[in-house]
Each structure stands twice: as C-alpha cells, then as structure tokens.
C-alpha cells in the first residue's frame, strides 16, 4: 500500500510518500502563487526520489491551508488532525503539539491514538508565527539560522512591548539605534513570540510531553524561550519537524 500526504502550507509545500506506513521519500517546495502546480511538482519530485510511478500511489491525502487546491487528492483533512496523527507516529509520548507554520500557530492536545483532544489556532495575528521570525531577522540584518542561535548568547533580558509585527519591527529598529546588543534583541523577540504561543497552549491545557513541529521548531532560540515560558525542561522535536503534517496526512488513509 503506497500513500502520499501533501501539506500545502502558506509558504512551503511538503510531500511524504509512505509504503506500508514506512517513509520512503519526502520533498519540500516553495508554495509560490500557483498552489495546484506546486502540489503536482512536489508530488512528482517525491515519487521520482522513491523511483515510483504515479500509478503506484493508492491513496493521496491533502492537508494545509491550501488543501482545496489539490484537486487530485482522494481525501482532505485539517492541519490539526494531520499534525496529531503525524506526531504520534514520530514521537508516541507527545500529548501536546505546538505547530508553528509561516502564518499560523496551532496548539493541539492529542490522545495516544493520534486523535485530536483539544485544539486552538491563532487565525489572525502573525506575531506568533514563522514569518514574524523572518521579518525580525531581516530587521536585525542577520541570517534566520544565526538569528535563532544568537538568542542563546544573550546576557540581558529586555522586554518587547509591541504586540504587532509592524510595530515590533520599528521597536527593533529603535533598540538597534539605542546600541542594544543584537543577542539581547534576538532573545527579546523570541520571548515575545513564545509568550504568544504559550497563551494559546494554555487555552488547550498543557500536558506533557510537549512537542514542537513546523519550521520554527529548528530555531534553538525559540525553543529556549518556550522552555523558560512554560517552565519545563524537555521539549520533543522530530528530526524533520516541517514534514509532520504531510506525514500525518499520508497516514490518514481511507
């Protein structure tokens, strides 16, 4: 049985191919403007990697914000259901999942069988999402990867007051002009993002163990802020956190 999961996100599209519930191939592409074309391209690239033909795929499940654009999918499921399913496959001990995508943050509490118990999505504000991190890194003129690591070297705690991405950017510029160390600004930004995510996690209730998925899970500065904010020592992160949703979709066969 070969199944494919396509997670058409706001920024990137992820595909995971499973053969008898084992991952055989995965592929990530920038979503761009034409979502349908990207879905097609990502799927064919993933199939090529696994040396499989399109006909060999028995079932295709789409998820993500652009899931409606995947016309060839046999089934569509929500991001929340896909995330829960995917994380339990990768990390069976996880009960609370924090998924930080490019434009949305989600907090999901799940059962041991991969079903969703409670969930909350921040549908509006970008301040707790991946694009915010990128915008702030740009304002500080550092690479996104370096931006995350920088936060860990901070020696001073300063507070960021702005709630909104646009105002936060001007606050960062003011801090730069006040000769504040970039490391400290980086930490303040990560703390601000984490506090927004934490308030959402508390809505659904914190239950250990906690896992973080989505591209932002690779940012050590954010993970450190999250640990301090939630007052926990351990946060689980899968090896390739951005593929969790696509994996969960692929696991959701008819």
């Amino acid at each position, binding site marked *: 049985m070969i199944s494919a999961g396509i997670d058409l996100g706001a920024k990137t599209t992820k595909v995971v191919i499973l053969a008898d519930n084992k991952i055989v191939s995965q592929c990530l592409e920038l979503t761009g403007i034409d979502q349908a074309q990207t879905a097609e391209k990502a799927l064919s690239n993933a199939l090529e990697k696994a040396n499989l033909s399109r006909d060999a795929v028995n079932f295709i499940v789409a998820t993500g914000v652009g899931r409606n654009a995947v016309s060839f999918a046999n089934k569509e499921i*929500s991001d929340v*259901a896909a995330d829960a399913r995917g994380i339990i496959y990768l990390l069976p001990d996880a009960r609370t999942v924090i998924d930080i995508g490019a434009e949305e943050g989600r907090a999901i509490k799940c059962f041991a069988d991969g079903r969703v118990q*409670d969930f909350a999505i921040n*549908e*509006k504000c970008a301040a707790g999402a991946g694009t915010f991190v990128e915008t702030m890194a740009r304002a500080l003129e550092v690479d996104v990867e370096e931006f995350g690591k920088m936060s860990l070297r901070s020696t001073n705690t300063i507070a960021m007051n702005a709630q909104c991405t646009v105002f936060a950017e001007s606050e960062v510029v003011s801090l730069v002009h006040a000769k504040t160390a970039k490391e400290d600004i980086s930490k303040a930004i990560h703390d601000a993002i984490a506090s927004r995510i934490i308030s959402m996690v508390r*809505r*659904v209730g914190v239950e250990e163990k906690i896992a973080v998925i989505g591209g932002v899970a690779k940012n050590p500065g954010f993970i450190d802020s999250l640990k301090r904010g939630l007052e926990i020592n351990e946060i689980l992160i899968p090896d390739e956190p951005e593929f969790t949703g696509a994996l969960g979709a692929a696991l959701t066969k008819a």
Partner: protein
Amino acid sequence: MRAHYGYKDGSGEYFIVLDTDQCNACKECIIACPAGVFEIIVDDYDEEVAAVVEEHRNKLKYSCAPCKPTSGYNELPCVKACIPVAISHSW
C-alpha cells in the same frame, strides 16, 4: 474534542470554544446567531459538528459585537440556544 476558533491580538483573546463531544449538530446555533457565525461541518473523524465559519474566525470580536453591548449583556443567543451546552466564549 474542544475546538477553539478565533484569535488573540493586541486588544485581547477572542475565541469561541465548541465542545464537539457535546454538540449534536441540531443547528439551533445557526438559527440563533444573527451574524451567521456557525455552520455544520463533517469533521476529520466523519462526525457532524458545529464549527465557526472560516470568514468569521479572524474577526470574531466584530462579528459578535452586536450581541455584546458595552453596557453589559445577560445571555448570548448562541449560548442560550445550545441545548447540550457546547458553546462558550472566551471574552
């Protein structure tokens, strides 16, 4: 499952919480809500449940404002109409 639909922004937290285990998809909330905030969907586990319409999820503060006058309110029409007590508001 408790589904939290809404958002948090600089002015506060605006979430409608729907307890899908309690919801029996009776559609009373759809009839009661003057803003058309609710709909019945088939969720990921093939169950019919109430949900917040996507276009309202990022403007609930405004969609629900007519039922929440600043001078105070007693009961919200959606909460009152929901017999199995599946609907609650965070603000």
